[in-house]
């Protein structure tokens, strides 16, 4: 089995995680009498995971550079408040309510302030040499306090109608046909990437994977894409919403016409775009290479001429930008911005990243892993909620799972680390 996987050049750890996720899903499905693996629940799961998943992508880079960011939940809080005020109080004075540009301007403001906040923390870590743990622990208090200050504790609502699409919900999906188009693009992308990579290696006469492994890899990846889209398209709008749409389009109300698919929720689409962007950045750009080099040996990185201080600022600023995106998703999902938004998210994010196989010692980390890690955490929480487990017991279980996950990962890694490879 291990030899097979290594022939296919698949990350063993990732496969292990996926299997754990599958076991959790099947387990909850059996325990809940078939209510877990349903299009509706999986749709909700994806929307609930989105905010943590986006931040987890950035946290991977932070932890790989041997730092930590404890302030992401608080940053999310203050950014959500700022964006709430911008779209609900400031912009309507000039543009009126629900202007089509409001959501974009709001998000832009959030992204810029997020980058600035992250950049300030990064500068304190990189240039002033204060440990990231302390800087961001301070940041946790500062930004959570600031979140209250933005409106003196008042919850901001209602938000801009277009902005709220970022959170999913009935309108916040792209529908069946667009979902199929996304699937098609993804599958073409997978095939293209496989061919390009193989050609590149062949042109230098490097050893390549056996052809069957290429086919299997591409088939599995394509299969996952199709499975996701089919599932999300199998979740139909509630009858009343569907009737309203049919009336608007002037179509007759028949049982078939009533089956209008949700398709990809916008938050999931955002997660996919963020993840692709960060995977490309971490593997295919100098920036990403330097992040890993700094984590592997900070001295070597500095001696190789890498400006590690500026890199630190950039990595933290990127984290701030992702917090702004997450802030938009979570506040849009709740349709309001409250100053306690994102409380304890730093722990969820770090847990997701660590479960996903990123080493706190730095130098090693995977964005795919962090995404699955986020899904594992959210699945446990949703699954237990579905079974009616007490919130206090949920925390206990999730805490234990976190420790167990890291232990088993280290244990398996020690046992299976093959000295000959």
């Amino acid at each position, binding site marked *: 089995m291990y030899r097979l996987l290594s022939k296919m050049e698949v990350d063993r750890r990732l496969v292990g995680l996926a299997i754990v996720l599958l076991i959790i899903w099947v387990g909850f499905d059996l325990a809940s009498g078939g209510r877990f693996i349903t299009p509706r629940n999986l749709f909700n799961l994806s929307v609930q995971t989105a905010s943590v998943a986006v931040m987890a992508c950035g946290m991977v880079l932070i932890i790989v550079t041997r730092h930590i960011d404890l302030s992401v939940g608080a940053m999310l809080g203050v950014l959500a408040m700022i964006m709430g005020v911008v779209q609900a109080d400031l912009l309507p004075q000039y543009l009126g309510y629900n202007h089509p540009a409001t959501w974009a301007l709001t998000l832009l403001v959030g992204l810029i302030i997020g980058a600035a906040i992250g950049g300030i923390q990064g500068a304190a870590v990189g240039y002033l040499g204060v440990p990231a743990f302390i800087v961001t622990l301070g940041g946790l208090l500062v930004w959570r306090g600031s979140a209250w200050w933005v409106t003196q504790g008042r919850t901001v609502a209602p938000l801009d109608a277009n902005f709220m699409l970022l959170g999913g919900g009935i309108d916040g999906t792209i529908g069946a046909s667009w979902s199929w188009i996304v699937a098609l693009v993804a599958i073409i992308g997978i095939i293209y990437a496989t061919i390009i990579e193989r050609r*590149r*290696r062949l*042109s*230098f006469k*490097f050893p390549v994977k056996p052809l069957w492994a290429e086919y299997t890899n591409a088939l599995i990846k394509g299969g996952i894409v199709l499975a996701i889209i089919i599932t999300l398209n199998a979740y139909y709008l509630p009858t009343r919403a569907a009737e309203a749409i049919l009336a608007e389009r002037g179509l007759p109300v028949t049982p078939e016409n009533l089956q209008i698919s949700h398709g990809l929720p916008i938050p999931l689409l955002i997660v996919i775009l963020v993840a692709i962007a960060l995977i*490309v950045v971490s*593997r*295919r*750009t*100098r920036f990403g*290479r330097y992040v*890993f*080099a700094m*984590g*592997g*040996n900070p*001295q*070597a*990185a*500095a*001696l*190789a*001429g*890498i400006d590690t201080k500026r890199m630190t600022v950039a990595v933290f600023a990127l984290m701030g930008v992702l917090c702004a995106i997450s802030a938009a998703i979570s506040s849009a999902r709740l349709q309001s911005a409250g100053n306690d938004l994102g409380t304890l998210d730093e722990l969820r994010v770090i847990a997701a990243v660590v479960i996903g196989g990123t080493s706190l010692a730095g*130098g*090693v980390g995977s964005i795919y892993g962090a995404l699955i890690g986020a899904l594992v955490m959210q699945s446990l929480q949703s699954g237990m909620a579905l079974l009616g487990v007490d919130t206090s017991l949920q925390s206990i279980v999730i805490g234990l799972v976190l420790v167990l996950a890291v232990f088993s990962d280290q244990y398996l890694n020690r046992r299976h680390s093959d*000295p000959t*490879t």
Partner: protein
Amino acid sequence: MTTDIRPLVEMRDIHISFGGVKAVDGVSIDLYPGEVVGVLGHNGAGKSTLIKILSGAYVADSGTVIVDGKEARIENARDARDHNIETIYQNLALADNLDAAQNLFLGREITDRFGFLNDAAMEHKAREVLHRLNPNFQKFASPVSALSGGQRQSVAIARALLFEARVLIMDEPCAALGVHETRMVGDLIAQLKQDGLGILLISHDLHDVFDLSDRLHVMKNGKLVGSVRTEDVTHDDVLGMIILGKMPQHLLHLAGPGATNIHGATLRPQDTETTGPTL
């Protein structure tokens, strides 16, 4: 050595102190093409600090560095590299989690026309260079943490060669290596010397560098004890220089400011205490 050839590198009257401690105090050394020069001294003698000034890790408080007859400003690792000065550090400055090719090109990656990394091209070049150095090298897909000491040293040296180093600084080149691998590095150095590189070997262990070097610069307490040709001295002479700062009698005219047995200077108490009776 040849006096009519211009030195590759000259460091003149270099001073640097850290919090009042004079780590390097008025040291001048030079290096000619095709020459291997050992820089020797105890731990704390200032040899590593001196060399880090040349490789851009520290900036000297005063003094000049002359490369190819022209004064060079070296303020960081990049500047040093621009003058074709490459350093291979004691702790084998490789990022353990990256593979050989990624380490070779760290800081100077090959990118495609869109600015994305071209790993295949880098691996291709890495295979070329590494096979020339070490025909048995195979592990291109594993992180360098999986390599042996000698293989890691090969990667570090290949890294320098890849970027057309003319001056190679090797800090404790054999510290992490076994007998066989030490011999391999010795062969490598001989080969590089043939190619006309100037090589500075930094070591606190005389035996590592005595046989490899043409000349030796010996430092003590931040000062130069003296620069001697290896053929003019014995192991004991050099040990005397390293431990006591004492120039051999027949070479007194070459003594530097750090020598303890000239200008009427006597051995200082702390020297005799730590080393016992004079040699």
